[in-house]
């Protein structure tokens, strides 16, 4: 399509939209209090979507709203009486008196959790969901990373007495990680796994972003933090020295053709970066010409028949199914690929089927599809769910094993906690060597949990830490520290 036609169409669509949605919803103008009355100003022209939005923002019952739109003037809903009054044009006012006495049985924490979602947090430096990253330092030696060792350097500040580094790698500790005075600045070497980290320096008690680092992100409270990536992959393309521009792009970047510009080297092009553990499809764009990676034999066709290069970042796990040698096709499917039923076709071996697959540390559920029939992994004792809804469970790079050393004669022991929404049907612990176990991967943070032994909820007898819960009983507490 010609750009002009596109533009005209876009313009017309916009015009049309503005005509039909005249009565646009401004959440700031819907509700106010006047003379002890809580008043909602609603527009009779609102679409269903806008009505739904208002109903959600202000917890107004959808039947209440429907009654307003049907023209009622007094509406009784629950034990509250609402009045409806037409004001100008298509606007109506829905009102009731402000509640003066609150229900005393509401738990404080419930309320805080509600308000939590309404508060405006400036940012969020969640590092675990980031798929890729490239650093942006103004000074070359301000940060170096090799063999899991990260070297941070803060120039100047010679008169400072004490300098610390604090970040996601040490739970933002203000005291754990001092820096050393070296030459003209302060230095620290940390053992870090590849990944994304937010950090700051603390110079004599004062938080300072890294002056050499241009990459910054806002934290919850609004202040900026420096951000650094510890690399785990280098894209390389030999030759093509006469090319003007070489970029790499892939599914990790939504196949954006802008790509990441590669840097010229002595014999070609290269780009070091961080990629989260997983399997990725990618291609190079050499002066806007697409090409697969000539140095990478792993090439697969996508759904449209295009060839892409593939890489696996991180350790691969070998999924295996013994037997079923007469089956025609076995597919691996699970929470790691959104239960795709075609993508991961397993390879046939003399003994059965196998498939090496790179996935990030985490907890996954999976099944095999043998000639169209779904089955759990017969070799894996760890199973979630019950009845027809069972899946095999695997914790990759598990960093904790829940253990219960008692009740060897129990029929079932379930592990339930904040990590699986207290699912009573979820993690069935496995008896191994006289004790019940469940390996799991957990992000750093606080977790509360309990065991359910033959239907009875119990605290972890081996964990001295516990919290009161809302039922007046207690929950066991587990803290997982950052693992670097």
């Amino acid at each position, binding site marked *: 399509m010609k750009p002009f036609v596109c533009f005209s169409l876009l313009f017309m669509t916009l015009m049309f939209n503005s005509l039909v949605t005249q009565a646009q919803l401004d959440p700031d103008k819907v509700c106010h209090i006047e003379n002890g009355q809580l008043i909602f100003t609603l527009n009779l022209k609102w679409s269903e979507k806008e009505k739904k939005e208002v109903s959600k923002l202000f917890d107004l019952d959808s039947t209440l709203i429907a009654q307003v739109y049907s023209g009622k003037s007094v509406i009784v809903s629950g034990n509250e009486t609402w009045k409806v009054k037409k004001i100008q044009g298509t606007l109506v006012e829905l009102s009731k008196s402000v509640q*003066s006495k609150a229900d005393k*049985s509401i738990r404080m924490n419930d309320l805080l959790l509600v308000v*939590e979602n309404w508060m405006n947090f400036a940012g969020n430096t969640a590092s675990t969901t980031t798929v890729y990253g490239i650093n942006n330092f103004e000074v070359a030696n301000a940060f170096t990373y090799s063999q899991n060792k990260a070297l941070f350097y803060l120039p100047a500040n010679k008169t400072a007495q004490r300098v610390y580094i604090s970040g996601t790698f040490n739970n933002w500790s203000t005291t754990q990680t001092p820096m050393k005075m070296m030459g003209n600045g302060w230095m620290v070497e940390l053992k870090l796994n590849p990944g994304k980290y937010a950090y700051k320096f603390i110079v004599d008690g004062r938080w300072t972003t890294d002056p050499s680092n241009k990459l910054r992100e806002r934290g919850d409270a609004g202040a900026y933090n420096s951000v650094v990536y510890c690399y785990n992959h280098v894209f390389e393309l030999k030759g093509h020295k006469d090319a003007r521009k070489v970029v790499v792009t892939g599914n990790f970047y939504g196949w954006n053709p802008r790509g990441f510009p590669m840097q010229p080297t002595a014999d070609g092009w290269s780009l070091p970066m961080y990629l989260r553990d997983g399997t990725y499809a990618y291609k190079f764009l050499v002066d806007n010409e697409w090409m697969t990676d000539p140095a990478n034999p792993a090439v697969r066709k996508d759904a449209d028949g295009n060839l892409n290069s593939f890489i696996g970042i991180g350790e691969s796990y070998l999924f295996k199914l013994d037997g079923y040698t007469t089956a025609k096709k076995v597919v691996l499917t699970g929470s790691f690929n959104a239960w795709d039923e075609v993508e991961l076709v397993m390879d046939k071996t003399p003994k059965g089927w196998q498939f090496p697959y790179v996935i990030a540390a985490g907890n996954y559920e999976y099944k095999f599809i043998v000639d169209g029939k779904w089955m759990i992994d017969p070799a894996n004792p760890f199973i979630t769910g019950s009845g027809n809804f069972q899946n095999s469970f695997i914790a990759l790079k598990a960093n904790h094993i829940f253990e219960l050393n008692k009740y060897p004669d129990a029929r079932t022991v379930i592990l339930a906690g904040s990590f699986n929404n207290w699912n009573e049907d979820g993690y069935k612990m496995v008896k191994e060597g006289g004790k019940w176990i469940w390996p799991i991967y957990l992000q750093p943070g606080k977790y509360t949990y309990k065991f359910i032994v033959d239907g009875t909820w119990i605290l972890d007898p081996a964990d001295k830490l516990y919290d009161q819960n809302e039922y007046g009983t207690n929950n066991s507490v587990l803290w997982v520290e950052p693992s670097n």
Partner: protein
Amino acid sequence: MKSGRIIYSLLFCIVVVAVAVSLSSFSLHKTVSTLPDAVNSPVANLLPAFNSGFYDPDFNLNADSVIIPMKTAGHLFLIEAKVDGEVGNLVFDTGASGLVINSSYFRNHVKSGGTTSTGITGSVGNVEQISIGQIEFADLTYRNLRADMANLGHIENRRGVKILGLIGFGMMRNLEIVIDPINSELKLFRIDQTGKRLNGKGTGFKPDYSQKIEGNTNILFLKGTIRGKVLNFCFDTGAETNAISSDCNKKIMSTLTITRRTVLKGTGTAGSEVLFGKMNDFVIGNHQIRDMETIISNMDALSEAFGTHIDGLLGFSFMKNGVLCINFVNKQFGIRFKKGEEK
């Protein structure tokens, strides 16, 4: 009934627990402070009776001031501390009077006293007091303290950080306190009997506006106005958002923008209406602060807990507007407003 009301005081559980708890400690400390040893310290001498100098810290470095880098978790400010060997965080919560300790980590500590009982404390549940041998943070060490114990697990669950306790103004009352929320710094200065910084440390705080601190508690009450009406607020660094009483004058209520509402269902049939929005016309001194996020709720229970009528809480939404200086010795509160967007 009183007990029901306090428990209901849902909104700012931190405040509620802390304040209710701390009111009981006032009475306990009162007896301590009449002992003659308070005379040994000239500063303590000037302090109101209930504050015995009990909480005076040692400055390890013999310095006259210290800058404490605070961590943030959501809109809470945390101070990394070691409490009797346990490492974790204290929430800087000026809605608490003194020190409140999380029962999860200290329930086996020696109890130094039980609830002293009257309505308020009893209603929070049985508030136990324990003895703490030593608290260290930044360059400060506190020894032999008495703390109130409460279950603070819900803050940990919401914020994912280990909370050893809450620390309020009572712990730093003999110092000049400068809170810089934008840079997450808490600065403490040693001061003399008149409230002046020792050895002329720094040039002193230059406020854009100051207000005399009234009352003799460890809780800071501030006067602010909305639509010309003077309101009494509690300055509460533990409140992650402001709050204003739904019982305020009608003119005041009409200035609020309501952006969210929900009805929380309890065991009662009515449920509890929670409103959230913005304070638009708040004025302190001659300075107007717009768009402060706020909860609109019944504040009776809080007022009861504080022992004085309050119209609201000034929490994070207020703090982030500038640098604040609190000096309980010369009874001055000052604020220097943020100029434009901070880098």
